[in-house]
């Protein structure tokens, strides 16, 4: 069973508020991914890290989202000013190696509702 921990499981915010969620990757996994899963269950890749360095991120993430994976602390994803369209399940995944041929281990997600 995956041991990726995500907190909180549920998050409710008003429009314009900050929303912050955290992820502890599986022990020994240097690579972390963040995905947004919408109400149609579609995955959108947001950003990934290897150790503390960003590997790739999409344009949306650069503008309204901030993310980090500091050493010896949980990774985090923060939406600076929440919008209704940000309501989704945010999934964190980790993997042992950096290539996208590797299995990703997912956490249970943080379900964000923006009112």
């Amino acid at each position, binding site marked *: 069973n995956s041991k990726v921990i995500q907190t909180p499981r549920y998050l409710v915010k008003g429009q314009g508020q900050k929303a912050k969620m955290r992820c502890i990757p599986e022990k020994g996994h240097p690579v972390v991914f963040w*995905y947004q899963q919408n109400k149609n269950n579609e*995955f959108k890749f947001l950003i990934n890290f290897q150790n503390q360095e960003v590997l790739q991120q999409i344009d949306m993430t650069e503008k309204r989202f901030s993310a980090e994976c500091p050493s010896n602390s949980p990774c985090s994803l923060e939406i600076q000013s929440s919008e209704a369209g940000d309501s989704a399940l945010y999934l964190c*995944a980790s993997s042992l190696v950096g290539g996208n041929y590797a299995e990703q281990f997912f956490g249970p997600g943080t379900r964000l509702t923006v009112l």
Partner: protein
Amino acid sequence: GDSVTQTEGLVTLTKGLPVMLNCTYQTTYSPFLFWYVQHLNEAPKLLLKSSTDNKRTEHQGFYATLHKSSSSFHLQKSSVQLSDSALYFCALGTGGYKVVFGSGTRLLVSP
């Protein structure tokens, strides 16, 4: 760019019947294909993966064969169970860092 297509949004079956969930992909790179399963309110978990052409891979009664000639990696099971009801995602890796997921197929198995 790279893409994954899952043509069925919903598949409904009676238990004991066989199932095939379709997955095709597009890439100009050497592909790694995955099937992930997500049960209700649970995290997605890896079910199968393959990068070897024409070799069947199996796990928990599910199997799939990567066919590079047709860019396909269909998921099959000979006899579905109630516990197989879940969302199934096909995903593509191409040696970079980003994995591309298909839109998912919901499998509903009835008694």
